[in-house]
C-alpha cells in the first residue's frame, strides 16, 4: 500500500511555504559570495568556445567529472568514499524531498509500486545512512585525528556546526520514518525505518511525538539548506562552478602583460603589474579563494611546505580567502603578510594544482604576487636577482659560469641551422650551454641525431628562452628575450624545434604563440621515441633497471609521461618511484629556485633519496635542471654517478654497440 504524506500532520503543506523564506536566505548568502567575487577584475578570455566540449567559458567535461562527480576527491580513497556518501546521499535525499513535494502538489505517483519500494523507501534510507556515515567519518577525523594537512598552517572552523546540524537532520528523519512505520505498518525497503519502528509504541503520545519530530526535522532541514552559503559547505556549489571555469589544460598559464601603456605618456593610469592586493586579481581567482576547502591536499604535496620552507599553498589561499571574507580587497599589506621569502620558495611545480579537488590555481596566484614584487617593488632574493641581471645583460641566467657559449661543442662537429636546408633547430638552452654536467646532454643529442640521419642544426648565437625570468616573476624580461628570439627564428625561417629542456618546451608552446612565435616544438624524449618507432635508432634492451623521474614541466605541466618511459623501456627495465607521473615530486629547481639559497631540508636530496631508494641501476630524467639538481642531491647518499638524462643513456648504447 502506498504512503500518504502528512498522514499525521495538520497543515503539513505549510512546511513548503516556510521553504520560501529559507530559499531567500539561501540566495542572499549566494549573492554575498557573488558580491565579493565580482570585486575582482574582469578578464576577457579571447579563446572563448574554441575548444571541443566548451560552451562559452564553461568546460563541460571538467564540470561533469571534476566538478560534479568530484573525481579528484577519490585520490584519497577513504576521504573520497566518505565524501561521496555524504554528497550523493544528500543529492538523493534532496531529490526524494522534491518528489514528495511534487506528490503533494501535483499527485505525482511516487508512493506506489517498485519506485516507492526501491527509491522512496530503500534508496532514501540508504542515502541517509551514507550521509550519516560520512558525517561520522569527518567529525572523527577533524576533531579526534586530524591529519597535518588539515591543521597546518591552521584548521578551518565552521565545519563542525553545519555537519552536526546535518547529522541531526538525518537522525530526526530516521526517527520520523520509524514513527510513521510504527503507526502505519512495515514499509518494505525502508530498512532503517522498519528497524527504528520497533522502538515506538502506537498510542496518542507516540503520534504527538511523531508530529513534533516531523516539524523539527522539517525546520532543521530547511535551516540546514539556508545555512549552506554561510558555511564551509558552500563548496558544494562553488566547486562545480570553479571546475566549469578552470582551464583543464595542465599547469599554469600566465597571460600576457601589455606593457605598451608604460610607453604612452598620455596614459593616465598605469596598470598594476602582478598583484599586491585582492582587487588586483581576476574574478576567477577570487572564486578560487572562495572555493578553497582548506583541505590541505596542496600543502601535503608541496615540495616547499614539506621541506620546512616558509611557503604553504594552503596558507596562501586561505589567507586570501579570509581577507576576501573580511572585505579587505584593497588592503595592499596583503602581499607583505604573505612574505616575499615564502612567495619565492615556490618551485612552480604545479603539484598543488594537481592535487586540489577544488581546481584552484595556486601557482598562478603565487606568480602574480611575484610579478608584483619583482616588477613593481624590485624585491627578489639576491641570487635570483643576479640570475635576472645576467639574463638582461648576457641573455642567460648563469652568472659566474666558467663555461663559454661554445664550450659544449668544442670537440663536436655540429651543423649550424641553415634557412631552407635544415629541418629541425636543435635548441640548446641555457643550462645545457653553461653548466658542465648538462652539456653532456647536448653532446649526446648531437650524436643521436647524426646517427639517425636527422636534418638538424643549431644557432650560431643564442639566448635563453626567458623562462627563468618569467618563473621568477619578471615578465618584462621574459617578453624582451622572447621577442628577440622570435625575430631571430623568423629571420632563419625556423619552423620545427627540438628542445632538451622542458622549460624551453613549455615557453615555446605556451607563451611564444601569444607573442607571435608559432612553431612545431618537440621535446627530445618525444623525438627519441619517434626515432625508435621509425626504426632509425635501435637499442638493445639490457637487464639494467632504470628509474624515471618526471620533470614537472614535461609531466604535470604538459602531460608527457609515456614517451620518456617508452624510451627507458627500450633500454632497460623501467622502475617507478612511489611518487611518479602526475604525482611526481619536484627536483627543487623550478620557479627560479635553481638560484635559491634553500632553507630547510633540500628538496633535491629528498627526491634523490626517493629515486636511489628504488635500487635502480640508473636514474633517468629528461630535463637538464632536474639532472643538475638530482645529481647534486644524490651526492649526499652516494659517490656513484647514477643520474643521467635519457639522451645520455641512449647515446651510451649507441657507443656500446
Amino acid at each position, binding site marked *: 500500500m502506498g504512503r500518504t504524506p502528512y498522514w499525521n500532520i495538520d497543515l503539513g503543506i505549510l512546511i513548503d511555504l516556510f521553504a520560501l523564506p529559507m530559499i531567500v536566505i539561501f540566495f542572499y548568502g549566494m549573492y554575498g559570495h557573488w558580491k565579493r567575487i565580482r570585486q575582482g577584475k574582469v578578464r576577457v578570455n579571447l579563446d572563448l568556445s574554441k575548444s571541443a566540449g566548451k560552451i562559452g567559458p564553461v568546460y563541460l567535461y571538467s564540470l561533469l567529472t571534476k566538478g560534479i562527480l568530484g573525481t579528484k576527491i577519490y585520490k584519497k580513497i577513504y576521504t573520497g568514499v566518505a565524501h561521496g556518501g555524504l554528497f550523493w546521499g544528500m543529492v538523493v535525499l534532496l531529490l526524494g524531498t522534491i518528489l514528495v513535494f511534487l506528490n503533494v502538489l501535483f499527485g505525482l505517483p511516487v508512493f506506489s509500486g517498485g519506485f516507492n519500494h526501491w527509491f522512496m523507501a530503500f534508496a532514501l534510507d540508504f542515502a541517509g545512512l551514507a550521509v550519516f556515515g560520512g558525517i561520522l567519518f569527518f567529525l572523527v577525523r577533524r576533531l579526534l585525528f586530524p591529519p597535518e594537512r588539515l591543521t597546518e598552517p591552521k584548521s578551518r572552523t565552521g565545519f563542525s556546526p553545519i555537519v552536526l546540524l546535518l547529522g541531526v537532520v538525518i537522525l530526526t528523519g530516521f526517527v520520523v520514518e520509524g514513527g510513521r512505520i510504527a503507526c502505519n505498518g512495515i514499509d518494505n525497503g525502508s530498512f532503517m525505518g522498519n528497524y527504528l519502528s520497533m522502538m515506538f509504541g502506537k498510542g496518542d503520545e507516540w503520534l504527538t511525538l511523531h508530529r513534533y519530530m516531523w516539524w523539527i526535522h522539517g525546520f532543521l532541514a530547511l535551516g540546514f539548506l539556508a545555512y549552506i552559503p554561510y558555511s564551509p559547505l558552500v563548496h558544494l556549489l562553488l566547486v562545480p562552478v570553479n571546475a566549469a571555469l578552470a582551464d583543464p589544460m595542465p599547469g599554469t598559464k600566465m597571460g600576457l602583460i601589455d*606593457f605598451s601603456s*608604460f*610607453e604612452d*605618456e598620455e596614459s593616465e593610469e*598605469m596598470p598594476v*603589474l602582478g598583484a599586491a592586493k585582492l582587487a588586483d586579481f581576476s574574478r576567477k581567482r577570487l572564486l578560487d579563494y572562495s572555493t578553497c576547502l582548506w583541505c590541505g591536499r596542496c600543502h601535503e604535496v608541496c615540495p616547499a611546505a614539506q621541506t620546512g620552507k616558509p611557503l604553504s599553498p594552503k596558507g596562501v589561499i586561505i589567507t586570501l580567502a579570509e581577507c576576501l571574507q573580511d572585505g579587505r580587497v584593497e588592503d595592499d599589506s596583503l602581499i607583505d603578510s604573505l612574505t616575499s621569502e615564502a612567495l619565492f620558495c615556490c618551485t612552480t611545480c604545479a603539484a598543488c594544482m594537481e592535487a586540489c579537488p577544488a581546481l584552484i590555481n595556486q601557482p598562478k596566484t603565487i606568480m602574480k604576487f611575484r610579478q608584483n614584487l*619583482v*616588477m*613593481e*617593488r*624590485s624585491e*627578489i632574493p*639576491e641570487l635570483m*636577482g643576479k640570475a*635576472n*641581471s*645576467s639574463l638582461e*645583460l*648576457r641573455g642567460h641566467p648563469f*652568472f*659566474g*659560469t*666558467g*663555461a*663559454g*657559449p*661554445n*664550450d659544449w661543442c668544442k670537440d663536436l662537429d655540429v651543423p649550424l641551422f641553415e634557412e631552407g636546408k635544415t629541418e629541425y633547430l636543435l635548441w640548446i638552452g641555457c643550462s645545457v650551454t653553461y653548466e658542465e654536467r648538462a652539456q653532456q646532454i647536448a653532446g649526446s643529442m648531437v650524436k643521436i641525431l647524426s646517427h639517425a640521419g636527422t636534418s638538424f642544426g643549431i644557432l650560431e648565437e643564442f639566448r635563453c628562452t626567458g623562462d627563468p625570468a618569467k618563473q621568477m616573476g*619578471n615578465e*618584462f624580461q621574459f617578453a624582451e628575450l622572447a621577442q628577440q628570439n622570435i625575430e631571430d627564428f623568423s629571420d632563419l625561417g625556423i619552423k620545427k624545434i627540438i628542445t632538451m629542456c622542458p622549460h624551453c618546451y613549455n615557453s615555446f608552446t605556451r607563451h611564444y604563440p601569444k607573442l607571435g612565435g608559432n612553431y612545431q616544438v618537440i621535446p627530445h624524449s618525444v623525438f627519441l621515441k619517434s626515432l625508435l618507432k621509425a626504426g632509425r635508432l635501435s637499442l638493445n634492451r639490457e637487464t639494467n633497471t632504470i628509474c624515471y623521474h618526471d620533470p614537472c614541466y614535461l609531466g604535470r605541466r604538459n602531460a608527457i609521461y609515456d614517451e620518456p618511459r617508452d624510451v627507458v623501456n627500450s633500454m632497460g627495465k623501467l622502475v617507478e618511484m612511489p611518487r611518479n607521473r602526475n604525482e611526481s615530486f619536484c627536483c627543487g629547481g623550478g620557479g627560479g629556485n635553481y638560484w635559491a639559497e634553500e632553507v630547510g631540508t633540500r628538496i633535491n636530496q629528498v627526491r634523490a633519496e626517493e629515486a636511489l631508494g628504488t635500487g635502480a641501476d640508473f636514474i633517468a630524467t629528461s630535463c637538464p635542471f632536474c639532472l643538475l639538481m638530482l645529481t647534486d642531491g644524490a651526492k649526499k647518499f652516494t659517490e656513484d654517478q647514477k643520474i643521467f638524462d635519457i639522451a645520455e643513456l641512449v647515446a651510451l648504447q649507441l657507443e656500446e654497440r
Partner: protein
Amino acid sequence: MHIVVLAKVVPDYEVPAGDFELTNSRAHSRYKRMMGLYDENAIESGVQLKEKYSASLTIVSYGIKADIQVLRKAVAMGGEKLSLVLGGSDDPNVIAANLKMAVEKLEDVDLILAGQQSADMDRGIVHGMLAEMLGFAFIPQVAKIEQEDGQWKVIQNTESGSSELKFGGKAVLSITSVPENVPRIPVVRSIFAAKKKPVVQLPEIEGDAMPVDELSVDIPKMESVCEFLPTEDDPAETAKILLGRLREERLI
C-alpha cells in the same frame, strides 16, 4: 641635497677565462657592454640615500655614445638624469679631469659616490684623483653612509676590519660591495621612465695624460695542473692539506 654617482660602462666582466681574448690590448669588442659591478653598488647606495634624505641623484659617466643605452639602467634604478662626457681615453688623469668638468656643470653637488674600482681596468684611482681636483675629501671602500647632526657618518670596510668615520662638507666616496647595497632590479615603470629622462652629452676636454706608456697587456693563460693529495682517513685532514697547498700557491 644633490648626490652624484659615477658609473662606467665596461665589457662583460664575467667572460670565462677560457673565452676571454684581447684586441688592441683591450677586451674584444664582441663582449657585451654593461655597468661595472661596484658601480652598480654605488648606484644602489646613492638611490638609498636619495630615498632616505629626499636628495636628487645624477649619474655621471665618461664614455662613448653607445653607453647611453646601458647607463639608462642606472637612471632606471633611481637616477634623475644622466650626464655623459663623450671620450675614449683610458688615462685616469684625463678621465678625472673630464668628470670634474661634468660635476662642476651640475649645481651644488654634496656627495659623489663611485664604485671602488672599475671592472675593466681595476685601478681604483680615478675617484681619488677627482676628489683631489675638486678639493673634496676622499674616503675609499665605504660600506655604509648615514647623516648625523648635519654631518656624514660612514663605515669603511678594509680587509682586516672596519672603521667608523665622520666628516662634514663635500666628499667623494668609493663604494664597496656589501649585502646592503646589492643592486636592485629596476621596476618596469622606471625602465620606461628612464627612456624619457634627460641625457646631457658633453664634449670631452683635453686633460693632462699621465706620463706613463703602456708597453704591453697580458691576460693569464688557462693552465690545468693536476695534483693528487694524499687521502687520509679523516677528510678534515685532507681538507687542511688542500688549504695549505692553495695558500702555498697564493691562490687564496
